[in-house]
């Protein structure tokens, strides 16, 4: 252990380096930069396009980046040292809720027709369960792709499969494919389906290579998807800059959610420096227009960026994610779930940044009777998310 205290204080002249992954939900970062919200807060931000979630995590952990567009579960995994070196990370701003979906390829969809009485059987996964049961045990298992092992995509896919009695570890194979390669992997038959964010579900439908079955919203209700994550040492040493970034992101999120701004938003995002794709491809990520297919998105399933219920960090979600990690054998035990949730999902800085009175609501805390059994209670299905999502809490 190094005895020298890490010193990563930014000087006023230093640009702030923020990493992002070129996905629809990096929009608030791009807009805060391009529309001058960062500059207005006096922060000179340099955005850095990153190639993988692992790279985002490592560069934030070792201060190659000051902060980043992160999967909501990433600061938790890093803080607990799951799949990586243990480095305390935190978030005080949720960038988006929702936007995921599960899509399967045409071949699997056609096969499922033989095992279903109605389209509901296909969408629920019931037909998939029947198909798997009827398959030869020696057959190559069906393959589903996710984007990262410690992500809502992984946990939602596993939850959806297990609800109909499919064992995500034994009955199917779950692999990782970078989002931009998902469509090709589905086309080539390398994978049979995937759980990913938009526009990759809509594009599969539009291009006729797959069928979308269910949205993340229908599995979990409204839940955080991406956050602005920083290392805790950095946050401690650079609070004024951290708070200024949160203010800028809050304004950018409101801008992104304003439908009048959509044409400009799509044109900025499509730029080679950002998503490097066509406006036509991106439109599905935001608008109510979805490709013609057999499936309608419920309004609530769209990605949402703005409003206090979206942007405020929810420690209850950290509790939920730790339970998912436990359920899928990524995490054994945590001495105090409440403490980790509070340290990683820092509500206080959100209120401080926006000059609001801190809410004293700590109803999210697990009581001392529940805390020791919480991970198990969620894993066994005794505790579930409210059907409308995390804001409504849990059903027992």
């Amino acid at each position, binding site marked *: 252990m190094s005895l020298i205290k890490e010193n990563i204080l930014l000087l006023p002249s230093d640009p702030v380096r923020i990493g992002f992954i070129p996905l629809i939900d990096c929009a608030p970062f791009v807009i805060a930069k391009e529309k001058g919200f960062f500059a207005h807060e006096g922060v000179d931000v340099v955005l850095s396009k990153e*190639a993988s979630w692992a790279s985002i995590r490592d560069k934030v952990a070792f201060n190659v980046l000051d902060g980043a567009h992160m999967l909501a579960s990433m600061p938790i995994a890093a803080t607990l040292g799951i799949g990586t070196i243990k480095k305390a990370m935190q978030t005080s701003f949720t960038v988006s809720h929702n936007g995921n979906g599960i899509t399967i390829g045409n071949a699997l969809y056609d096969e499922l027709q033989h095992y279903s009485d109605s389209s509901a059987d296909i969408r629920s996964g019931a037909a998939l369960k029947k198909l798997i049961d009827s398959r030869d045990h020696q057959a190559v298992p069906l393959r589903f792709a996710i984007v990262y092992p410690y992500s809502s995509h992984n946990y939602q896919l596993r939850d959806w499969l297990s609800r109909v009695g499919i064992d995500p570890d034994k009955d199917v194979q779950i*692999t990782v494919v970078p989002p931009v390669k998902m469509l090709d992997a589905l086309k080539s038959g390398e994978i049979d389906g995937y759980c990913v964010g938009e526009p990759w579900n809509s594009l599969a439908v539009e291009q006729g290579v797959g069928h979308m079955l269910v949205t993340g919203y229908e599995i979990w209700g409204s839940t955080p998807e991406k956050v602005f994550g920083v290392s805790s040492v950095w946050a401690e040493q650079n609070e004024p800059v951290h708070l200024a970034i949160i203010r800028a992101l809050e304004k950018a999120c409101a801008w992104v959610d304003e439908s009048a701004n959509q044409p400009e938003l799509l044109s900025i995002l499509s730029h080679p420096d950002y998503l490097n794709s066509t406006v036509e491809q991106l439109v599905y990520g935001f608008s109510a227009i979805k490709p013609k297919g057999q499936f309608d998105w419920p309004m609530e399933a769209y990605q949402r960026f703005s409003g206090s219920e979206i942007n405020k960090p929810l420690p209850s979600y950290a509790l939920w994610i730790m339970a998912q990690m436990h359920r899928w054998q990524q995490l054994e035990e945590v001495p105090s779930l409440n403490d980790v949730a509070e340290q990683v999902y820092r509500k206080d800085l959100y209120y401080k940044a926006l000059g609001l009175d801190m809410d004293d609501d700590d109803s999210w805390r697990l009581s001392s009777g529940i805390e020791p059994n919480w991970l198990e209670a969620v894993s066994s299905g005794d505790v579930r998310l409210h059907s409308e999502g995390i804001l409504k809490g849990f059903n027992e």
Partner: protein
Amino acid sequence: MTEPPAKELTVMLVDNEPARAAIVEQAMTDSGYRVIRRLENAKNLTEAVNQYQPDMVIIDIESPDRDMLENMSRLSQDNPRPIVMFAEEDDSRHVEAAIRAGVSAYVVDGVNSGSVKALLQVAIARFREFQALRSELESVKSQLEDRKLIDKAKGLIMKHQQCDEPAAYKALRKLAMDRSQRMTDVARNIISVMELMGDSK
């Protein structure tokens, strides 16, 4: 000449930069490690790892395929040798040096960390060397570009002011000093103004 004895550790190298991969592979071989596979395109990385069963995977930090390796950290039916990112808690300086040099490393659970560190050192050194070479190349290139811009601007000034080269250079230099801009930037401005006026010949 006798070959150095092959050390136990086997390595898979994943790098989209063929020149760098060749340098790193050579360095590893020279240090007595066995590079069992070098991949430029990491398509089906998971299968390649399962097939060749390396003790260690060294991968460019900028590779989009790193996330596939992150998924192999669990012992499961189709993943009999779980691999984890090399990240020793007691020695995070090693990891930091690797990340700054653009190297990330995954090791099979339980592999001796001493030899992993030694091998990581070899990779870090070569990645750094390559980084230095490339930035040198880039600076030479940009110097050349600067030269070209300045020559072109000088030519335009000579033609319009009907002056000789030293005078044109002096004029350019004065303009740069007055505006506290780089000579190259002034040259670029002059060229674009002339182009606008339809005369950049």
